[in-house]
């Protein structure tokens, strides 16, 4: 029974991470590419880590809690790295695809 739960979690997590990576390849410009890794991957990793937590808690003695810590750090760092990258992209005036709306909302550099 536990094996089933672990396998389902692993498959689901794996597919979310895969979708995030597909987004990275498929999207037309840098700003849209950023959406895949910052979001789809967080849930994917959370599911994979839950699977790992169940596996190690059931096979080894004691409760394995390190995974909670890993997901905490992931949740903290994902938005920050995304923010740094998009800030750098705006600073370098990277092209976004033509149908992007509200491009005037970007203010000029100091």
């Amino acid at each position, binding site marked *: 029974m536990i094996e089933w739960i672990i396998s389902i979690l692993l498959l689901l997590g794996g597919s*979310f991470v895969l*979708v*995030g990576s*597909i*987004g990275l390849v*498929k*999207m*037309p*410009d840098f*700003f*849209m590419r*950023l*959406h*895949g890794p*910052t*979001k*789809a991957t*967080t*849930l*994917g990793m959370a599911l994979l880590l839950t699977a790992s937590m169940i596996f190690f808690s059931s096979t080894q003695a*004691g409760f*394995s*809690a*390190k995974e*909670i*810590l890993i997901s*905490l750090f992931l*949740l*903290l760092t*994902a*938005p*920050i790295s*995304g*923010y740094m990258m*998009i*800030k750098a992209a*705006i600073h370098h005036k990277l092209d*976004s*695809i033509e*149908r*992007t*709306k*509200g*491009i005037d*909302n*970007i*203010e000029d550099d*100091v």
Partner: protein
Amino acid sequence: MRSQMRLEAKFRWLPTPLRSLLLFIVWLLLNNSVSAGHIVLAVILAIVIPLATSPFRTKQPLVLKPGLAFRHLMLVLYDIITANVQVAILILGPNKKLTPGFVKVPLDLTHDMPITILASTVSLTPGTVSAEVYPWRECLTEGKEPEERFLLIHVLNLEDEQALINTIKQRYEAPLKEIFQC
């Protein structure tokens, strides 16, 4: 009565109570044990580290409504899950249907800490990544509050700009204002 925003904690030896609690929990998780020795060490670290680092830090508003903060955290976690599913669908769908856009969201928050939390929440929730906070820090004169602040966000699929701004303001900014009372 509406309570006031507080920058200083009640006890001087505990400048940032929630951060101390976080340090305590993280230390126990890192060691994966709740033995007496580690609890003592965690308590010492949780008190010493905030005390040692607080002189380097600019004062930020403290969490005044912990219960509400917890509720907001649960809401954000739920939104992260739905965000992932929505973005996955958008990514797998045809590229042609997507109309990306930059949106400027006017902010009512004033301090760095609440703005950072809001920006991170926006990055983790449906189809939006926060990009920039206006005005730039370099443009500000020391000790003077800017008239208006904006958060620039990039949206993967922009449909109704005003609706999106309203959602962000009501769903994520209003609770933060309530939590920090600022």
